[in-house]
């Protein structure tokens, strides 16, 4: 069972959003920053999409910029899109929205919300998200403004948390999060992480043979191995995990591993403690 650990890590990340500014109020600067860019000790980490846009927009290539993006890229090469499934505070909110949605569908609205994910099929979803990333990067380069930062959900959440702690208020960016969550709750389930999030799209590009992934231990991993298909129903990204464990959309969230009754799904590639 990975679910409790995953939730613990997610809530720890959400706690950190409010705890880092509190530390800084007490003038402890060993960890500073938001989820756009963070410093842990002397290790500088920045979102690679943010760095990519800064490179395109400013047209200058500097060593600190690349160095800040290096750590997330190595992390993604080793563990896949773990940032999305296990750490990102927006993904936690989207999980909460999904739970609330299921409740509303069952109790109040009698299935008036659509159940299907907006763009079906992993290939189409990947085309949409990489298209959005490329479009955003090209616009950033053209107008010299990192435009994808306006829709950088984890960054906005952590920035708003910091502003809330420091100034007891929030800024207009919070409306973006509210609108997206409301859309996910009503008509477009899971659309942001699956179809648009530029950070998720960019870090999922870094995938090698040794990257952590979901593997099917059945004899023929391409064929459906049971009739219930719990894993496909559980997958928030709309994948069929018995054959698409290595898809670029997969966040290693392990919901499919937990839902598989016959315990055929497991971690593959670079293995954790196995």
């Amino acid at each position, binding site marked *: 069972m990975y679910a409790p650990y995953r939730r613990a890590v997610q809530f720890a990340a959400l706690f950190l959003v409010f705890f*880092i*500014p509190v530390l*800084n109020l007490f*003038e402890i*600067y060993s960890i*500073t*920053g*938001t989820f*756009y*860019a963070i*410093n842990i000790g002397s290790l*500088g980490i*920045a*979102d690679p999409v*943010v*760095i990519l*846009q*800064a490179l395109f*927009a*400013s*047209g200058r290539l*500097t060593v*600190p*910029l690349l160095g*800040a993006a290096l750590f997330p890229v190595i992390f993604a090469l080793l563990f896949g899109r773990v940032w999305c499934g296990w750490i990102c505070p927006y993904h936690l909110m989207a999980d909460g929205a999904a739970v609330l949605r299921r409740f509303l569908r069952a109790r109040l609205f009698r299935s008036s919300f659509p159940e299907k994910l907006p763009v079906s099929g992993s290939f189409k979803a990947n085309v949409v998200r990489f298209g959005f990333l490329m479009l955003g990067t090209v616009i950033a380069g053209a107008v*010299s*403004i*990192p435009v994808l*930062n*306006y829709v950088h959900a984890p*960054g906005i959440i952590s*920035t708003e948390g*910091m*502003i809330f702690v*420091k*100034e007891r*208020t*929030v*800024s*207009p*960016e*919070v409306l973006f999060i509210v609108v997206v969550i409301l859309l996910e709750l009503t008509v477009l389930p899971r659309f942001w992480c699956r179809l648009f999030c530029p950070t998720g799209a960019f870090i999922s590009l870094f995938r090698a043979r040794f990257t952590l992934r979901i593997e099917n231990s059945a004899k023929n991993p391409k064929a459906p191995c049971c009739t219930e298909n719990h894993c496909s129903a559980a997958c928030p990204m709309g994948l069929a995990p018995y054959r698409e464990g290595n898809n670029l959309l997969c966040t290693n969230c392990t919901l499919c591993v937990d839902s598989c009754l016959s315990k055929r799904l497991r971690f593959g590639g670079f293995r954790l403690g196995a």
Partner: protein
Amino acid sequence: MSPFFAQSIGRAALAGIKDLIQRIFLRGENPFVSYATNCMRPPGAVDEKAFMALCIRCNRCLEVCPYGSIKRAGVGFAMGTPYVLAEQKACYLCMACCRLCPTGALDSSLVSPEKVSMGKAAIDKSICYSHLFLEHDVLPDHTGRKIGALCNTCYNVCPLQDKAIVLRKNLFPEVMDACVGCGICVERCPTRPKRAINVIPTGMGRVDEAGFYFRKAKGHYESAVTVEKQGQQGVLKGDRLLEQKSRIDATTEQPKFDFPYSVPKSIEGWD
């Protein structure tokens, strides 16, 4: 629970929500649609275009600022970028934000406050108490009360005292080129509703520095200085002119005010 109690709680909650909404939207004024006086980028900022490209809106400068000087710009293209609003809280030049900027939008190699250039302060002589006192001795302020003051607050609070702001004749303040534009003088300036001293941010055009004739006059002044360096007597300006004039005495021989340029006899095309 009595109905009165419930009513008052409800009213307080409504007032709180209204206040929150107002605070969200009213602080959304965006100072960087165009330049405005007293709105500066934090210390060490690169020029405005490169800053807009490099700043990733991570707000770490805002987070680390111990004085709470740095604010965020509201809705617009500059949304989320940092700025200092000198009238509310000036920059105290602790240089903590420059060190932390991950993309170099704030120059991380900048450590000495003297090398910052956020802007330049400019004194409005028509409101400054000291300048008015110099001319009128006693004057009415905006309430009609007669005041006359040698205030010099800007000189007293300036972190680069005697470099950025000097006191001329121990009477009135004057801003020098060493001014870094931190805005502490603006924050403390006592005149209301308008401040007598304002910071003009770097990159914003100044009325008194604009136009062809200003540049021409400036070039003329520079050439006069170079002429003087060569050992001839140059065109005197400002303090040196005052000094020389003060030495004029009718009883002694008068100094010569030579014009060191040869005047052309004819001008091309002016026949």
